[in-house]
């Protein structure tokens, strides 16, 4: 699956990961490797386990068997070591989850100040630079509820980036957005991909997958069914499940 010339250690490595929600086997023997700089896009029908898979990487979901390694180290259980690991893995949620009682600047600087022990002045300087990068330099003092969905999601991306993460994960980042706001978020994500950020993206945006992904991982019913570069996957899907899925999402 990996090209043989690379000798780097994988940034994320899942092997034989299984997870159940009650009787439902939501992740079935999942093997997945993410190399530094790689952009992995997870697609598949609703309920196929993509979000759950993504959330196991920073242990927002625990697993029942198998193992998850981030940066060569097994994922720690609860406690300080896990918090430390999470600080290196940025996460963007479907519903933004900005801290409702803090303004935009405070949302972005909370992690750097509390976790990285950065001074307030330094953290704010960097936060403003990040806001500039996501096109929201005039919103530093606004509260989340005063922003549109697209703006909130761009702030959430800036909040993740403020920790200088090794990996950014996006869990359906545009699914809760009005259609006219989707592109402003995808544009920021595509810039990140171009700049070499390692990314794991769960999305239904096929256009984004085609343009930005290094690898498309297609999931169905808790299994990884197909892994391929986007051009191969979209133009020449190998499995019946993938062909069926693509015929439904690409037909209109």
């Amino acid at each position, binding site marked *: 699956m990996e090209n043989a010339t690379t000798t780097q250690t994988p940034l994320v490595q899942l092997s034989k990961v299984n997870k159940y929600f009650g009787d439902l086997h939501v992740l079935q023997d999942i093997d997945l490797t993410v190399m530094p700089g790689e952009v992995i896009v997870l697609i598949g029908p609703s309920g196929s386990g993509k979000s759950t898979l993504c959330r196991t990487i920073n242990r927002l979901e625990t697993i029942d068997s198998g193992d998850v390694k981030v940066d060569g180290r097994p994922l720690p259980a609860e406690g300080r070591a896990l*918090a430390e690991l999470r600080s290196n893995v940025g996460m963007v949620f479907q519903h933004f*989850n900005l*801290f409702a009682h803090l303004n935009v600047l405070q949302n972005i600087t909370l992690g750097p100040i509390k976790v990285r022990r950065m001074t307030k002045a330094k953290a704010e300087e960097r936060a403003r630079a990040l806001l500039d990068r996501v096109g929201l330099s005039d919103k530093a003092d606004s509260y989340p*509820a005063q922003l549109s969905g697209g703006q909130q999601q761009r702030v959430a991306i800036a909040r993740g980036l403020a920790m200088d993460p090794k990996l950014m994960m996006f869990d359906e980042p545009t699914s809760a957005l009005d259609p006219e706001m989707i592109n402003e978020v995808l544009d920021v994500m595509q810039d990140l991909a171009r700049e070499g950020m390692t990314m794991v993206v769960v999305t239904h945006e096929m256009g984004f997958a085609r343009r930005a992904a290094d690898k498309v991982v297609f999931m169905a019913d808790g299994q990884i069914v197909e892994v391929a570069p986007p051009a191969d996957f979209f133009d020449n899907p190998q499995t019946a499940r993938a062909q069926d899925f693509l015929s439904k999402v690409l037909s209109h």
Partner: protein
Amino acid sequence: MFDNLAQIAAALGSGLWVTVWVTAVSFFFALVIGGVLATMHVSPAPPARWFATAYTGLFKNIPLLAVLFIMYFGLPKIGIALPNWQWAIIGLSTYTAAFVGETLRSGINSINLGQAEAARSIGLTFGQSLRNVILPQAFRTVIPPLGSLLTALVKNSSLVLAIGVTETSAMAQRLINDTDVHYNLWTVIIGVALCYLIVNLPISYFIRRAERRAEFAR
């Protein structure tokens, strides 16, 4: 009816002062203990959750008077001797703490799970996410119920007359039982009611103001 008004006012006034400081000190400790209980309730460590559940179940379901009696009459038997007013404060604060803990916990539970997930995802520890993300938001939702607990505590504090603390109600009882002077019963009773109103009405007012000020900027 208006005979001896000055003496009645003086007696009730000195009792009222006791009511106010006993309530204030008890509420302070109730907030501290209740905060610890709420933290234990949501903690990832099962023994902490068990302790909080047991404490709350016990103190919520025993009458305050029984709590006061058990402490005042029972604990000295195992060698813990304290002045009456200290038992009053310990009884009132441990009892009220169970309710404060439940109130804070419901406040914490009212915060969207996504807030905690986002806090953890940027690397905050359990304690840090509680302090910086969850509690500041939970606090806004619990100001009104905490205010109700405070006004209830002001009234509950009248029960400490049973263990010999001379707060407002105890002073009233003393006046009524005074066979030398024969204070008018209704003057004393209405005076007591006025005393509690004087304390509780401003509390209600300030709680309403605090509530309005704590509303999200949106």
